[in-house]
């Protein structure tokens, strides 16, 4: 089966492209980006501010299982319903700095649509660090488990 979500990241570049085809009409796909209540549901985040217009800005806040709050924010450079969103994205309290995001929405058929997300980072190093985050977190989880097991092994 063809993978629905694809990530293209060429070696040595500071950008990546995420593509996804949806079994949704274009209007519904775009609505998922437009309405704050819907963004909250699929992004799993609280939307504190979302001004969908040229020179607008947004502010999201997620709470992790430990109860820590993480902020995400950006400014919107362009917002054309059903066509494109151009914006920045920045994780607060992280060293990565902002990234530029070009989102393009396309109608494939009456019932299908496609999103192309072109993300540009400040450097190739930062892009690779962000790409590796989920992998590193997975390994860390495994590592914590080993430490737990070793500790238990010693105390029992």
């Amino acid at each position, binding site marked *: 089966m063809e*993978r*629905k*979500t*694809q*990530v293209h*990241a060429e070696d040595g570049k500071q950008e990546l492209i*995420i593509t*996804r085809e*949806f*079994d*949704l009409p274009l209007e*519904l*796909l775009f*609505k*998922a980006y437009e309405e704050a209540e*819907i963004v909250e*549901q*699929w*992004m*799993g985040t609280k939307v504190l501010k979302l001004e969908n217009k040229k020179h607008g800005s947004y502010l999201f806040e997620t709470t992790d299982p430990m109860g820590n709050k993480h902020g995400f924010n950006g400014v919107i450079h362009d917002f054309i319903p059903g066509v494109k969103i151009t914006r920045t994205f920045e994780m607060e309290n992280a060293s990565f700095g902002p990234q530029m995001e070009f989102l393009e929405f396309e109608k494939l058929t009456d019932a299908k649509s496609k*999103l192309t997300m072109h993300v540009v980072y400040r450097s190739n190093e930062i892009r*690779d660090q*962000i*790409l*590796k*985050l*989920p*992998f590193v*977190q*997975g*390994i860390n*989880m*495994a*590592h914590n*488990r*080993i430490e737990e*097991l*070793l500790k*238990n*092994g010693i105390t029992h």
Partner: protein
Amino acid sequence: MNLRRDVFQAIADPTRRAILLLVATQSMTAGAIASNFDTARPTVSKHLQILTECELLRQTQNGREVYYHINAKSMKEVADFIEPFRQIWDERFNKLEEIMKNYEKSNRKMKS
């Protein structure tokens, strides 16, 4: 067979990742690996079998003992690190799709 996908399915399991970390520094027998886990020995054997089948681990015979060690070549294949990143976006977009399908249904009901 899509070996690449199998490799990522193999490392998607936390116990199997823990096994890989254990043998990363030294080759170990199945018994020595199993002694690090609460799980039943046959369960660990099954994990070792999966890791060996997708060539993340290799076996070498040393007398009566079989030692497991990391297959560096396959680990390098995993090391492009993109798959877990892709999975996060895939899950997020799956959720978007599901929510909007429900949204469409409830809107239709309201109109009719």
